[in-house]
């Protein structure tokens, strides 16, 4: 009997896995399995139902308390991403980059990687990126004579960059879990003035590894263009030369947003939540100025939206200017009456422009779509957190913590062995489960143990994020491949998509290995920025 109790946590994990594969929504399945094992635990007298009473308090404390501001970044980033998607940023970028690089051998492949990276840093929504590029770039690449394998692999891989390049929703949620785990680990070690690791640290940590992957992807495109020119031919030059105006029109919005949002987070000027809020407003201005969702774009409305956007940029620059070279934070109001008046005028113009943009978007229906999608994605993410918190509550009460800890300590090779086994398990789970489930279920269980072994939290977070990203790309179950299969033309066989993904999986493994062996790649930037 006592051995049964000891393996109960393992059974619980196995049961959850089996139940999830049935296909009922994850959030409730996790809760249902947890309840079943709570009943078994009660029958065996190892679980006290009094712990159930804490469940609403846990929901409140985990999700709704004032100190959980960081979670608000999730709906805000989703709002920003969906808004950009509706204003056809991706389509314009693909066209512009295709025109810019397309005439080189391998150029279309490079442009897909670059667009994937830009979208990753602005919208960060993997599914939408893969679908858009699959619908727009894949047919073009095939028409130009690209091998289906290379085209499909490039698109799927570039789409997954959205997870690793900050700001990304994955990193917000993972950073939050790692942050909690780090505090728990330090408390368990008796450190009473613990170090804090923030989502901003993880953003900074993921930046260099993300760019490293982009570099490796581009390098692969160049390599193929040189060694197998037939797989990646050049497109004929467009008539009338390159249209720089069009390219700037496509590039400026995402670059501006990336600069403002990521820049203010990395510079330590704003929290991720604040930056996400400003990013969402910026995206709304862009969509409003383009009159997204309708065919016409009257000049006057366009002008007012642009003036509003310019005023917002002006306010941003004013704040940056006020803080430039100052040791303490200065406010614009401190700079004198004229400055203050100027700021008020800018605020007025911003409000006017925002109101008009919103009115335009409401009329065309885009605003409703964005709000509904934000509500749905937000509910999807956080209700999984509710289900997962019940799961981990009961997993812990059944002694799962100690079981996992003993198992990890028994792995030969110390912290490296434990890390390797955790990474392997996460990789395998990533075939079947979304990053959200893995982040909410696995990370809180294993991360405190790993951190207690002396592993750096930012390094661990970046490795986990890269690992999950890789498993989303790995045949046969990678999510990105499913998204692409859904929109790829029938002449691109599933086998071709799988074969095309494999080189990129190898590139990912090289990237992970690089970060594992040279931790500086992940920890260098946050240390340099935040000390």
């Amino acid at each position: 009997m006592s051995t049964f109790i000891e393996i109960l946590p393992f059974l619980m994990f196995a049961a959850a896995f089996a139940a999830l594969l049935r296909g009922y929504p994850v959030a409730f399945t996790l809760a249902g399995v947890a309840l079943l094992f709570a009943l078994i635990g009660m029958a065996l007298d190892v679980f006290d139902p009094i712990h159930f009473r804490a469940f609403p308090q846990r929901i409140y404390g985990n999700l709704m308390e004032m100190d959980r501001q960081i979670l608000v970044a999730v709906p805000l980033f989703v709002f920003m991403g969906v808004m950009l998607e509706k204003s056809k940023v991706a389509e314009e970028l693909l066209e512009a980059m295709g025109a810019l690089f397309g005439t080189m051998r391998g150029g279309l492949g490079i442009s897909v990687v670059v667009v994937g990276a830009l979208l990753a840093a602005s919208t960060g929504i993997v599914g939408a990126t893969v679908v858009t590029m699959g619908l727009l770039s894949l047919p073009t690449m095939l028409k130009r004579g690209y091998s289906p394998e290379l085209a499909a692999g490039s698109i799927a891989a570039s789409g997954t960059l959205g997870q690793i390049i900050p700001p990304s929703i994955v990193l917000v949620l993972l950073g939050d879990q790692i942050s909690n785990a780090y505090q728990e680990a330090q408390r368990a070690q008796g450190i009473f003035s613990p170090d804090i690791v923030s989502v901003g640290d993880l953003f900074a940590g993921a930046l260099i590894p993300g760019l490293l992957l982009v570099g490796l992807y581009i390098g692969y495109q160049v390599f193929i263009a040189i060694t197998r020119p037939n797989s990646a031919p050049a497109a004929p030059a467009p008539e009338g030369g390159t249209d720089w105006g069009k390219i700037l029109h496509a590039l400026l919005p995402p670059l501006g947003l990336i600069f403002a949002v990521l820049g203010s987070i990395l510079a330590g000027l704003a929290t991720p939540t604040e930056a996400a809020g400003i990013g969402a407003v910026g995206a709304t201005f862009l969509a409003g100025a383009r009159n997204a969702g309708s065919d016409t774009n009257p000049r006057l409305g366009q002008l007012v939206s642009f003036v509003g956007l310019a005023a917002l940029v002006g306010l941003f620059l004013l704040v940056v200017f006020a803080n430039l070279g100052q040791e303490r934070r200065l406010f614009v109001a401190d700079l004198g009456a004229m400055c203050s008046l100027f700021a008020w005028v800018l605020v007025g113009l911003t409000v006017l422009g925002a109101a008009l943009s919103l009115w335009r978007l409401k009329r065309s229906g885009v605003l409703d779509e964005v709000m509904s999608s934000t509500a749905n994605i937000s509910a999807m993410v956080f209700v999984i957190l509710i289900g997962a918190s019940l799961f981990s509550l009961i997993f812990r009460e059944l002694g799962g913590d100690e079981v996992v800890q003993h198992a990890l300590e028994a792995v030969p090779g110390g912290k490296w062995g434990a890390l390797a086994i955790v990474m392997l398990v996460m990789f395998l789970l990533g075939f079947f489960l979304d990053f959200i489930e893995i982040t909410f279920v696995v990370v809180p269980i294993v991360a405190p143990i790993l951190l207690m072994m002396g592993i750096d939290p930012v390094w661990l977070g970046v490795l986990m994020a890269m690992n999950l990203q890789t498993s989303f790309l790995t045949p046969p179950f990678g999510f990105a491949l499913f998204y692409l299969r859904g929109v790829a033309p029938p002449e691109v066989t599933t086998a071709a998509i799988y074969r095309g993904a494999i080189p990129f999986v190898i590139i990912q493994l090289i990237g992970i290995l690089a970060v594992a062996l040279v931790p500086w790649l992940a920890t260098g930037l946050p240390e340099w920025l935040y000390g």
Partner: protein
Amino acid sequence: MRQGDGFLLVLVLVGIGLSIVDGMTGGGVASWFQANLPGIAQSIGGKLALAARYLWPILTLPLIMAVLGRFIALPSAWHSFQRGLVGVIETITGGFGGAARWFALGLVVVTATIVVQRYVFGFASTKLQESVIYMHALLFLLASASTLLADGHVRVDIFYSKASERGKAWIDLLGVYLTLIPMSALILWASTGYMNSTWRILERSRESDGLPFVFLLKTAIPLFAVLMILQGIAMAARSGLKLAGQDTPPRPKNLGEGEV
């Protein structure tokens, strides 16, 4: 106006009306609530708990009938009753979701306002800060049921997507009764003491200049559970209709997509 807009408008107008009356009477509304609300809530809560205790077996009806329908032909009146039930429930959950979606915009606007206040004018309002968390919580708690209706709660669909329509209907039906309703019922059951203690003192923010509505915010948790049970019943009824080879009511449009 879309589903839920009117509902939200009425709530906002009631709130504004109450605060105007409160201002005119010099805090009269607030003190009346302070004096009477805990008692009223206590008696309503007690009646709800009593009703739940005796009425919960009704919830299993769609399950029983669906399993029964496997062996005998059900009367068509039952099918039309189920269709009507689905319509009523989805109007309710869709209304809540439709109203909640505005909080997405509210989050953006209020967060941006806070940022400008803080960085440009060096001024911070605790009430505004707290309203962000309120909107964030209400957004996902109240939109969860309509997200289920829109099939926006992520599934592991490696096998589900390949299952037949009947297979999917069975999974949904059993999923509702094995996972969704037990989880929601647990939340409701465990909330009784929690609600009691927060409504008794009409719990307010820990900050003296914060919002005094923590008890309402916490009440959104059992409300979430109720909405999920309702939508679960609708999901079960839909599955039952599908298993009986009947037409299911169309899903409402304008629900938005949901994938990351």
